């Protein structure tokens, strides 16, 4: 019994909650970005590659300029470029977004591994200048919530602001209306004299930037200046699942990401007791459960909504 109690106390601890926020943040940032492209009617499967590039260029910038902020800057710049590249192919040249997304993911793995080898000589690097955790002494006076929120990377707090801004943008400004119209009924926007393509471009670039931020947080904040091959580790796909689960609502997408963070944290905590291979599958099992829920919910709604039209 004492073994079991030990497991319980490790799993249900403040540390788990702190870990939850750390793990959720990159997924949440990408999911907020994915909400933009989703609203613009683009199925963006390429977020994983966008995150990976952000992670790499974050570390590279940090390595070259010896400051983590330069890394963030380089990651953001590359995020804009990747978003534009994606929009160029998908919006301008009307390529299949699914194929381009897949290609982007594969391309990102190859490019980052190659560049990593040419700059660092190996497929990974660590110990580069990282983003410091913020220690706010007054927070520790609050039980549970205080330690949970304290000593986090700046990005954790920044994500809340981004989530709020994204939510306001999508649902409370005319531009958000245009963004949603560009995905739902582009012709309507066109006949109103606004270019739906421009909205799709903006959404792609925003998504590129937010995924880059997610990647930079992953390498510079979450893992203290470390880059490892394919370190995005399917977080882009999980972010995509969050987008679908949240019906592209940035606030709900954040909550969904938080849920993933929670299960990932539990998985990490359990690694002392159970095989890591087993605990690592937890977030993906949760993804499948969530997607099943989405489908069931959709069908129920269809049944309910049907008698209204005439």
């Amino acid at each position, binding site marked *: 019994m004492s073994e079991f109690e030990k497991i319980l106390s490790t799993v249900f601890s403040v540390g788990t909650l702190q870990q939850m926020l750390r793990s959720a943040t990159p997924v949440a940032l990408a999911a907020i970005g994915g909400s933009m492209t989703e609203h613009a009617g683009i199925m963006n499967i390429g977020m994983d590659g966008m995150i990976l590039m952000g992670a790499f260029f974050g570390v590279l910038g940090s390595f070259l300029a010896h400051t983590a902020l330069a890394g963030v800057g380089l990651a953001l710049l590359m995020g804009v470029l990747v978003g534009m590249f994606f929009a160029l192919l998908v919006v301008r040249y009307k390529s299949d977004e699914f194929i381009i997304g897949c290609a982007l993911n594969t391309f990102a793995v190859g490019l980052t591994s190659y560049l990593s080898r040419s700059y660092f000589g190996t497929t990974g690097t660590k110990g580069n200048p990282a983003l410091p955790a913020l220690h706010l002494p007054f927070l520790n006076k609050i039980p549970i919530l205080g330690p949970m929120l304290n000593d986090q990377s700046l990005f954790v707090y920044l994500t809340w602001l981004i989530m709020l801004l994204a939510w306001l943008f999508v649902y409370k*400004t*005319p531009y958000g209306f245009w963004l*949603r*119209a560009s995905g739902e009924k582009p012709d*309507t926007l066109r006949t*109103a*004299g606004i270019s739906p393509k421009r909205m799709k471009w903006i959404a792609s670039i925003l998504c590129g930037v937010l995924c880059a931020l997610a990647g930079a947080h992953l390498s510079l904040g979450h893992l203290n200046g470390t880059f490892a091959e394919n370190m995005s580790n399917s977080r882009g796909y999980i972010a995509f699942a969050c987008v679908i689960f949240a019906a592209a609502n940035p606030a709900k997408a954040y909550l969904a990401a938080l849920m993933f963070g929670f299960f990932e944290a539990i998985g990490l905590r359990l690694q002392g007791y159970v095989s890591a291979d087993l605990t690592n599958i937890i977030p993906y099992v949760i993804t499948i459960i969530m997607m099943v829920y989405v489908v069931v919910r959709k069908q129920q709604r269809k049944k309910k909504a049907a008698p209204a039209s005439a």
Partner: protein
Amino acid sequence: MKQTDAVIRFEHISMQFPGVLANDDVSLEIRRGEVFALIGENGAGKSTLMNILYGIQTPTAGSVYIKGVRVEEYDPKIVIGQGVGMVHQHFMLVPSFTVAQNIVMSREPRKHKIFFDNAAAEASVRALEEEYGLVVPESVPVEDISVGLQQRVEILKALYRGAEILILDEPTAVLTPQETDELFAVIRRIVQEKAMTVIIITHKLDEVMAISDRVGVMRKGKLVGVHETKDVDARKLASMMVGRPVLFDELERTGLVGDPALRVSNLQVCDHRGLPAVRNLSLELRAGEILGIAAIEGNGQSELIEAITGLTPVKSGRVEVLGKDVTGQDPGEIRAAGLAHVPEDRLSTGISAAATVAENLLTGKQREPRFNRFGFHQNRAAVRRYAEEVYERYDIRGAGVDGLAGDMSGGNMQKLVIAREFGFDTPVLIVSQPTRGVDVGAIEFIHSRIMEKRNQGAAILLSSADLDEVFRLSDRIITLYEGEITGSFRAGEISKEEIGLYMTGSKRQGGTAQ
């Protein structure tokens, strides 16, 4: 001066698309404060001309003048600013947005410069409603309101943008007769009280007669005539549209009514939501007669036909084709029993848009020995011979039998479906919406083919939203209301006005209801 009352002037407009001259030297003036009807067959160039006016397309030659000012740049944004509004045939509304959000789109009222001001949006919509007497539910999502109301939202959207000239593209295609009457009342009001100009694109001639002051007829890209509506009649307009006399005369009926070919007894069918759509319905159809179903859309006629043809499961009851019980069999088995089906939606179920005309014509016949060698190798030459013969006989006009079916106009797609289904020579024909969205010339052709089949002894079940069509073709008519037969009549026994009472359920014949 003549030009002062011309609010729109087209001068020698030509529009060349690859391979098609859509507008050929069109010159036309629209006067302020009139209702101008623009009519013509599918592909005659009416929509192209209106798209040019609305700034969606740039003409290859000629100029457009709006209120005396020449249009220099063809861009909807600029044209909207000059007071032109357009209600497209397929509504330009975002389903999940509310009525008010749709109306103010692109000119949203704002709070603190960047935020959408929903209260102000709804207030300005309410002000518009009062000004024009057009009531809409401002805060309800557009996907939850009826098609008639959606059209009203489109009109309000144009008015919100300051339209003085309103283009309505096929506005009645999706409306019920009552909604059409309401729309016409609105048009009259805005023209008389607000001095607006309305251009209405249509191919329904009785509506032209009912609503317009003047009418312009287009044929093959040319404007072939402009008349005061009071100087013409529907027959003359039809001839001008088609370019030859159209004889909507009584179709000749010959032959004798034979044995029962299709029998439906106590049929119960549920719709896709699982709600009862056809309730305990029985009918009998004999060889050599046309039984027409008169019903407002959504009263079980689609489900009835889907159940007969095996596309939807039967809950209870029986369907017999030539005395053989086919209840619950799949469409292939039912067809083999002697039934052919012209489905109501040619694009989704009638044809395969991505296949060639020849392939579409072959569908359902591909296993016949004459198109096969050794049972698996297609005899291309035989298929081609057959397709070309049918193509010719049914007067299909497109890019030939090797062209894609989806590239043809609606009327020709419909002829293709009719040609294929009538080519099976089956004793029972189920014909649904045979001429929906099809022009006058094609309607005349399709009607005479249906009558020819009847005279040859086919049993035909006809379902159509067009009451004129039901009256013109049917030997007997039944009315459906909420999945039940409310009346059964011989042709000539009842007027259109009276049958409307049975279609809306306000009247029903004693014995036939149950």
